């Protein structure tokens, strides 16, 4: 167990270093923060609504993630395959589980950092008014969980190809799908085509459905379990993909 954790920690450290040793991390964080600010205040009509909360930031967070998170994850496996380092990592005394968990946790920590850096938004709204800090915390927690789900999807698709562009597009499309199926507008459009229970069922798999309630301040265990299940499933698939490639 101790060896397991130490190995994962070693991989997490290397991965995180990898983010910050290339310009990717800085560009990403800059764009993420700039867009967050834009969505929170300008696009979300913060000044018109005259409410001291971050609802619009969280409302657009799933959309922001759709094209930003695949940009983080697209290189994770694809790059290792392109440069051949995958042969190195797979022949070191490290299990596949350790490698996958290490890569995933590093990317999750990185997104956690990016989210944490939006803290000035919190300071701003507390300065301007009196927001419900509990609800804000819940929303951040939900955002972090949801980021994990996006990352796990991106990591999985990155294992499918050595081409980063393909990895990006495939994971963005999967994430877009999981966002769209939970949108009220999409559900309404589908209502004539399929029975209501089916639409509900499909919507039950959407990020929107589960993130929606968390960012309004309700942390429901079912939503937490949903995101964790997506993460688990995707990491598991990731393992199967890599294992298959070894045996192919």
């Amino acid at each position, binding site marked *: 167990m101790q*060896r397991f954790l*130490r*190995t994962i920690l*070693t*991989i997490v*450290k*290397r991965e995180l*270093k*990898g983010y910050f*040793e*290339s310009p990717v991390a800085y560009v990403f964080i800059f764009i993420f923060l700039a867009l967050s600010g834009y969505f929170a205040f300008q696009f979300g009509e913060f000044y018109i609504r005259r409410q001291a909360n971050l609802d619009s930031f969280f409302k657009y967070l799933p959309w922001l993630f759709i094209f930003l998170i695949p940009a983080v994850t697209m290189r994770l496996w694809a790059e290792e395959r392109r*440069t*051949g*380092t995958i*042969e*190195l990592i*797979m*022949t*070191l*005394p*490290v*299990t596949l589980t350790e490698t996958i968990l290490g890569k995933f946790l590093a990317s999750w920590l990185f997104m956690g950092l990016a989210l944490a850096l939006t803290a000035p938004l919190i300071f701003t709204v507390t300065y301007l008014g009196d927001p419900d800090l509990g609800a804000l915390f819940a929303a951040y927690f939900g955002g972090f969980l949801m980021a994990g789900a996006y990352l796990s999807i991106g990591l999985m698709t990155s294992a499918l190809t050595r081409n980063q562009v393909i990895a990006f597009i495939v994971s963005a499309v999967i994430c877009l799908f999981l966002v769209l199926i939970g949108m009220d507008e999409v559900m309404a459009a589908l209502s004539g085509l399929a029975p209501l229970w089916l639409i509900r069922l499909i919507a039950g798999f959407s990020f929107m459905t589960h993130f929606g309630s968390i960012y309004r301040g309700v942390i429901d265990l079912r939503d937490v379990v949903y995101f964790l299940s997506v993460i688990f499933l995707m990491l598991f698939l990731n393992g199967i993909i890599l294992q298959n490639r*070894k*045996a*192919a």
Partner: protein
Amino acid sequence: MIEAKHLTKIFGRKTAVDDISFTVGKGEILGVLGPNAAGKSTTMRMITGFLVPTSGTALVGGHDVLESSLAARQKIGYLPENAPTYPDMTVNGFLDFIAEIRGFRGQNKKQQVIRTLERCNLLEVRFQAIHTLSKGFKQRVCFAQSILHDPEYLIMDEPTDGLDPNQKHEVRDMIRTMAQNKTIILSTHNLEEVDTICTRVLIIAQGRIVADETPAALKTRSGLHGAICFTLPKIGEGVWLKETEEIPGVDRAAIVSEGPEFVTIRAFPKKSDERLTEKIIRHFMVKGKPVEKIYIEEGRLDEVFRMITTQSL
């Protein structure tokens, strides 16, 4: 000891490795030769656990690479083809990472990294990002990675590929000095390398082993093996070939090269154990044409290689 047991790998419809078995013991340096796409890399990848064999398995130090893969991988040092490394990391950072993965911690880790940097002549570039280094240095960084934990089993896929002659020499020296207490498998296209460092040669063609012997034994398969090559001054007129063929014991002769003053001839003996060298020297001495240079051909690996690998097609 490394034992390959009936290793077979089939990619789709192509059989890349077809029932390969061999054993390499401590102190041996096994050179794996073969044309491109013969299955050298695939074989190594199965032994190191990167690929799962379609059938068969390998034992490394008694550990089955399929059943106790982790234990086997702990004992192996592996230099993959093209020496992959993480380009954005520094040399030091990269080796630090490998050392940690290999279970070294604290002071122990530091020592191990420094020692490896010294051994591979990397101290001067240790804080440089790997992508800023020349190809030779990159190769050495990956080489360093493979020997950091002083492994019992060292598997290297084209360790000197892309190096300049001096660097090749260095790497070969390193391999040779390490060989005494290790089991080494290396693949190469360089026949000279096999001749200078390998104790045994495995030739693979189309996924099968077509030869498994010492470099010296392999060379005796050469058509040139035992032939006598000698250089004569061109004094007066001479029908060099005819004269050579008249010497008893000579089967046939051929001119290797002819200059304005000298001619070099290769004589093939009827039976290789005859004392033909002496006879040739005496024969030409009597005719007033002292032999300038003379030597017995050991045989050429490149010729044997070509013969063996094209025969099997």
